């Protein structure tokens, strides 16, 4: 064995390491592949050895080769071996390799689960760190499920280094295993306030990432993030939060209102450009979300636009780019404020940076108007011409089309111009967007009826010159336009000047080289043309010979298509060929066929909206899946056939009922429109008349010579069809002149003065050249409006759309784990109980407080005197805004809403909502600058009272209670003066008005049958025992019996069960409960470590017995072992206390409480009572206190108070315990 090791390490000296490999590759530039393949052979040999050092060296080299593109998945098992080395060096190499090449379908990943779990719990933080980093790259759903609990535990690790990694990786776990989101979320939320900035930033990161995909589930976190935003100084965190708000604000406009001010402040104050930019972005998002509701935020818009202009004008190209990007967002809602910067944006079109040009293009899209469209497009056409890269040119092309076609061609006044632009664009060599141009041509020709004659003429020219477009068949993208051209010429052939020529062009042999779908259109439309030609020829009976020649042309040419390898072409061609042959026969018998042939293609084809079919509602009572006829028990293929048949029947029905509807509308309107159009055409001198002669002139004058399609020389720059621009300008001039004439007539007196400053044309002044009849796309009757059909069903984030506000159900408190999993090793008690923390705590509080309040209330009634009442009134007056908000909130809150949701409403209600005058008033009362503080202060109070409110039985008392509550506060105020000279003894206060007896019994759980309250005390005599006294109260009218109490043990804390009982057996409660009776039982728990607070999950099962029946019920609860409950009130004399402090064994810690306005003796009494301390000495506003844990830790406190601030200096020999106790003290006071 030893020999083997020595041999291994000697071998190693001769092995190549990574550096040697790299050097070798660099030295073998000519035969790199060959060299690497020999290296891989060597590596395979190395991997066969037992020496882990050799193996890890090999794996390290493989990682490098992987980067060069070599597949190394064959070594996956060896990688796992290296990962499981006990040495960090090798482990790290292994995990790096795994992170680079493992993925979900790597099967050896299954083998890693236990290794990773071991590494996660390693005492060495870097082992854990490396495992987390690796796992983040290759986590699979299985790993996520199996390790979720372990990672969740790590989120509370003592080292921030581990915490932040654990927090971050949870995002990946959520993605792969969505079930973990709800149980883990409370802890994730906690981490937002982690003391370590790195952990906090990680938590913000994760929640932002989650919220970006499903924002509405995270709205309730807005107050927390708001707090972070106003307090954090970390720009990374701020940027993330501000981005998150950008995503949240569309869902909740009130949030936006709250945000505007702090964001504006940040914009003014920050020096970091990144932060400034994100602020501007979010302000924009807010403004967008508000644009409907709020009348005026012009100041904010101005601020944004102005800041963005500064960015765009900056010499830093990055800022310029981002400025344009943000500007385009403003454009959508506030186009006016952007349009004033048109100069700047046009300037950016000339920027040398393509990214910037593209952004500027985006902006142009929103800036066009009827007035400047032609000018802008002309500019763009120049750029198309100059563009070097095809990407940018294609981008320009799509932009031009986008700009022109936006909102139903809203800005196009002259469609002839647009068609000629499209024709112009077909000259772009190698563009990918032929289909785009084609669909535009089709769309315009179909929907703008007035333009058809012109369009058809242009298309005929295109067809005639088809060889120029298809000349370069590799770049055949552009030949798509022939598809459109052929269809338009066929469908609207009545506008063709020389249909015969076009027909001939469409049947040229070269057509057979076009893509199949285009040929098919050619063939079909050739038939349409044929029918038109026949019509024309049969009109003159002498030409029957010519007509027969036409048929012969088709018969000659079509066979090429019949032989096509494209099925559709073949089928259409042979159908039409047979048809033509038949026609020819008839023609030979001198039968007139034109009319019948034309009938084949009668009727208009109308555009159908893209989603029309999907939106056809299924008629009531129709089940598409139901059989129309009972299926014969035949083969499956037959079944399928039937199914499709069923669908076909449905489709036919559909078309039957939509078609007549359309023609009905059309018939009436068409007549009217035709009249209008004729009148318009007659009046418009620039309109090309439809008479054959004029069209011919036009063709020659404009079409052939000026439209550059014809004179193709691809090296020649594109020529913008200026004539249309000019024509249009002239037309506008003329229109203007006409209008002016009219104006003059109307107001002769004013006319003179006005003429001088007639200024630029306004939008409305421009009348379209044609009475444009844009046919809308057809939609089925009763189409359902729906916008939800755009979502990607495969988006992994869909699974994370989970309501996080709903309190965790019992079944969710713990992450589900597979039962066979050996998970005892790592299951920490805290983590088991963690899930419910958020929900259980307020309940407990409310229980306690209710007791107190009730008692205090009584006493106050006794002691109330006139003076107090006066004070009450005054205070009540000053507190009115708050109160009105509270009542508002209560009224608005539906009984079932969750505390978080109403909390959010409450928090948000500080922002004015126009519809709610009361709330608006509340805000105007408070100075705006203080709103954030006030809001967070108030928000903190709300959760306490909320759970009470949700208990419907106590609804009526609520208001009274609140009043009492307030009185209590005044009461304390009142007595603080007199409390100066009281003496304190062992935690009880001698006072004229002693504190009401406080109860340590906290609400444990409650349902309609039973209520459980409990008190947890350490056992003085046994350092490892805690006694839990539970009072069971029967709340119902039935007898409760057979109560069984069970708690799920954790590693640290176990319920003591009688000997012989199994670790999961429950304890029988030794009594029955008649209606209305309560009784107490004690349970003893053994604990090991008392340093950390813990939570245990338990269940009470019981039988409710009524006279006629009995039901089995169950109630879940969580036992919270606070660190306080491990402390035992122990008296201590001042000299012993002094000695203890002098010993130097104790470590210190401190705590500051602010805004405590209760008298000092009440404060001390509370600490004594709730946290089991005793007062050692008290001098004025300073006191020393002492307590001892059940395991003998000394805890010493020095409490001082001054102006509502209480500082507590504490010492203890167990810092962890001390920290937790102090946290609990803090919590106690934050609740009063």
């Amino acid at each position, binding site marked *: 064995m030893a020999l083997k090791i020595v041999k291994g390490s000697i071998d190693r000296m001769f092995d190549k390491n990574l550096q040697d490999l790299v050097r070798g590759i660099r030295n073998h530039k000519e035969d790199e592949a060959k060299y690497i393949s020999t290296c891989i052979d060597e590596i395979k040999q190395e991997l066969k050895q037992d020496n882990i050092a050799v193996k890890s060296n090999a794996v390290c080299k493989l990682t*490098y080769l992987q980067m060069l593109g070599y597949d190394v998945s064959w070594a996956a098992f060896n990688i796992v071996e290296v990962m499981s080395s006990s040495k960090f060096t090798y482990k790290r190499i292994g995990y790096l390799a795994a992170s680079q090449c493992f993925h979900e379908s790597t099967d050896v990943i299954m083998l890693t689960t236990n290794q990773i779990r071991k590494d996660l719990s390693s005492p060495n933080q870097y082992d854990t760190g490396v495992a987390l980093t690796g796992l983040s790259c290759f986590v699979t759903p299985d790993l996520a499920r199996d390790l979720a609990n372990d990672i969740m535990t790590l989120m509370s690790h003592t080292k921030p280094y581990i915490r932040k990694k654990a927090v971050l*990786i949870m995002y990946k776990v959520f993605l792969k295993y969505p079930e973990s989101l709800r149980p883990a979320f409370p802890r994730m939320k906690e981490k937002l306030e982690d003391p370590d900035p*790195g952990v906090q930033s990680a938590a913000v990161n994760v929640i932002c990432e989650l919220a970006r995909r499903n924002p509405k589930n995270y709205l309730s976190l807005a107050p927390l993030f708001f707090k972070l935003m106003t307090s954090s100084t970390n720009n*990374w965190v701020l940027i993330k939060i501000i981005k998150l708000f950008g995503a949240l604000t569309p869902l909740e406009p009130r949030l936006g209102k709250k945000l505007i001010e702090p964001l504006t402040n940040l914009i003014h104050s920050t020096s970091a450009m990144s932060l400034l930019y*994100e602020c501007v972005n979010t302000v924009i998002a807010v403004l967008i979300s508000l644009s409907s509701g709020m009348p005026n935020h012009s100041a904010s818009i101005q601020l944004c636009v102005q800041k963005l202009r500064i960015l765009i004008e900056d010499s830093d*190209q*990055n800022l310029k780019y981002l400025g344009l990007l943000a500007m385009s967002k403003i454009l959508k809602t506030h186009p006016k404020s952007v349009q004033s910067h048109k100069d700047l944006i046009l300037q950016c079109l000339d920027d040398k940076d393509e990214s910037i040009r593209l952004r500027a293009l985006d902006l142009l899209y929103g800036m066009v108007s009827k007035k400047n469209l032609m000018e802008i497009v002309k500019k763009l056409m120049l750029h198309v011409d100059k563009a070097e890269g095809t990407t940018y040119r294609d981008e320009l092309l799509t932009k031009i089309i986008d700009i022109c076609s936006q909102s139903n061609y809203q800005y196009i006044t002259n469609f002839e111009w647009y068609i000629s632009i499209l024709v112009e664009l077909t000259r772009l060599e190698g563009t990918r967007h032929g289909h785009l141009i084609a669909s535009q041509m089709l769309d315009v020709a179909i929907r703008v009826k007035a333009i058809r004659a012109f369009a058809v003429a242009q298309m005929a020219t295109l067809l005639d010159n088809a060889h120029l477009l298809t000349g370069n068949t590799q770049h055949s993208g552009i030949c798509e336009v022939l598809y459109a051209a052929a269809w338009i010429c066929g469908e609207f052939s009545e506008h063709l000047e020389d249909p015969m020529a076009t027909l001939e062009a469409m049947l040229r042999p070269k057509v057979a080289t076009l893509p199949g779908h285009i040929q098919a259109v050619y063939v079909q439309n050739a038939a349409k043309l044929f029918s038109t030609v026949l019509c024309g020829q049969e009109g003159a009976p002498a030409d029957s010979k010519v007509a027969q020649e036409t048929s012969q042309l088709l018969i000659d040419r079509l066979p090429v298509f019949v032989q096509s390898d494209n099925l559709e072409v073949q089928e259409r061609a042979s159908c039409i060929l047979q048809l033509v042959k038949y026609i020819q026969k008839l023609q030979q018998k001198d039968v007139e066929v034109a009319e019948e042939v034309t009938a084949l293609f009668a009727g208009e084809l109308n555009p159908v909206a893209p989603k029309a079919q999907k939106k056809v509602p299924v008629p009531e009572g129709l089940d598409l899946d139901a059989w129309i006829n009972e299926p014969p028990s035949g083969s499956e293929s037959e079944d399928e056939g039937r199914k499709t048949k069923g669908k076909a029947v449905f489709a036919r029905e559909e078309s039957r009922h939509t078609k007549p509807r359309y023609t009905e509308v059309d018939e009436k309107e068409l007549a009217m429109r035709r009249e209008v159009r004729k009148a318009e055409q007659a009046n418009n001198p620039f309109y090309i008349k439809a008479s054959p002669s004029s069209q011919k002139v036009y063709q020659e004058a404009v079409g052939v010579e000026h439209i550059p399609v014809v004179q193709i020389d691809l090296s020649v720059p594109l020529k913008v069809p200026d004539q249309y621009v000019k024509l249009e300008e002239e037309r506008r001039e003329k229109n203007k002149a006409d209008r002016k004439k009219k104006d003059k007539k109307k107001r002769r007196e004013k006319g003179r003065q006005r003429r001088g400053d007639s200024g630029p044309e306004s939008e409305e002044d421009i009348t379209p050249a044609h009475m444009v009849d844009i046919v809308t796309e057809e939609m089925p009757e009763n189409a359902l409006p729906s916008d939800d059909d755009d979502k990607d069903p495969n988006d992994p984030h869909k699974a994370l759309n989970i309501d996080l506000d709903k309190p965790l159900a019992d079944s969710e408190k713990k992450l589900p784990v597979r039962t066979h999993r050996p998970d005892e090793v790592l299951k920490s008690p805290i983590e088991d109980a963690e899930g419910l923390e958020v929900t259980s705590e307020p309940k407990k509080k409310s229980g306690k407080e209710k007791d107190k309040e009730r008692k205090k209330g009584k006493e106050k009634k006794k002691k109330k005197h006139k003076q107090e009442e006066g004070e009450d009134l005054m205070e009540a007056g000053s507190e009115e805004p708050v109160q009105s908000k509270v009542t508002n909130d209560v009224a608005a809150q539906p009984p079932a809403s969750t505390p978080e949701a109403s909390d959010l409403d409450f928090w948000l209600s500080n922002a004015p909502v126009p519809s709610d005058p009361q709330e608006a008033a509340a805000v105007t009362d408070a100075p705006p600058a203080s709103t954030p503080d006030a809001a967070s202060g108030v928000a903190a109070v709300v959760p306490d009272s909320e759970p009470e409110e949700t208990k419907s039985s106590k609804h009526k008392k609520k208001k009274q209670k609140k009043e009492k509550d307030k009185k209590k506060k005044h009461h304390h105020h009142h007595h603080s003066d007199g409390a100066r000279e009281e003496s304190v003894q062992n935690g009880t206060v001698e006072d004229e008005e002693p504190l009401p007896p406080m109860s340590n019994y906290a609400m444990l759980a409650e349902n309609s049958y039973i209520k459980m309250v409990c008190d947890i005390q350490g056992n003085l005599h046994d350092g490892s025992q805690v006694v839990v006294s539970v009072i069971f109260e029967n709340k119902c009218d039935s007898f409760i019996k057979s109560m069984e109490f069970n708690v799920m043990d954790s590693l640290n804390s176990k319920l003591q069960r009688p000997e012989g009982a199994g670790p999961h057996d429950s304890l029988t409660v030794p009594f029955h409960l008649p209606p209305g009776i309560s009784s107490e039982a004690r349970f003893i728990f053994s604990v090991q470590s008392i340093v950390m607070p813990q939570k245990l999950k338990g269940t009470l099962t019981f039988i409710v017995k009524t006279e006629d029946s009995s039901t089995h019920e169950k109630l879940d609860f969580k036992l919270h072992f606070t660190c306080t409950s491990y402390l035992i009130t122990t008296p201590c004399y001042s000299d012993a206390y002094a000695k203890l402090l002098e010993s130097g064994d104790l470590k210190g810690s401190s705590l500051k409480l602010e805004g405590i306005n209760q008298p000092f003796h009440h404060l001390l009494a509370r600490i004594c009572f709730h946290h089991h301390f005793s007062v050692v000495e008290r001098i004025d506003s300073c006191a020393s206190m002492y307590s001892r844990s059940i395991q003998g830790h000394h805890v010493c406190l020095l409490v001082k108070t001054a102006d509502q601030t209480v500082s507590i200096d504490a010492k203890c020999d167990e810092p962890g315990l001390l920290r937790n106790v102090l946290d609990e003290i803090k919590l106690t006071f934050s609740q009063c």
Partner: protein
Amino acid sequence: MIKAILIFNNHGKPRLSKFYEHYSEDTEQQIIRETFHLVSKRDENVCNFLEGGMLIGGSENKLIYRHYATLYFVFCVDSSESELGILDLIQVFVETLDKCFENVCELDLIFHVDKVHNILAEMVMGGMVLETNMNEIITQVDAQNKMEKSEVRL
């Protein structure tokens, strides 16, 4: 989220590639080539952002890069990242490399790609930014290197 981090030289030779989504080795190489093609043809004084190549999500993603001497550092990120923030992050990354390698140059990256990975792992984890504080990153990297050294001695 950061989708990928690539370092390549002026000739498009990869010096480090870290993909936070899985692609096959071939696709990874294509992405590197495509990215190099997009980035390398840009002038020095143009902006550092551009839309991602077709292979890596197209316009959903952005490429944010910096060019230092012979090397391009390219981050491919989605819309949740702040562009200027990532630029700063690249700067932090490079400065960290500079500190760890003492005057970093391309050769350091060529021969010690594993170390570069280890440094990167302290900054970005699973596509999310883990740490932006250079001192903290260096502390953690040094501590791990120390551990490695102590293991060698054993």
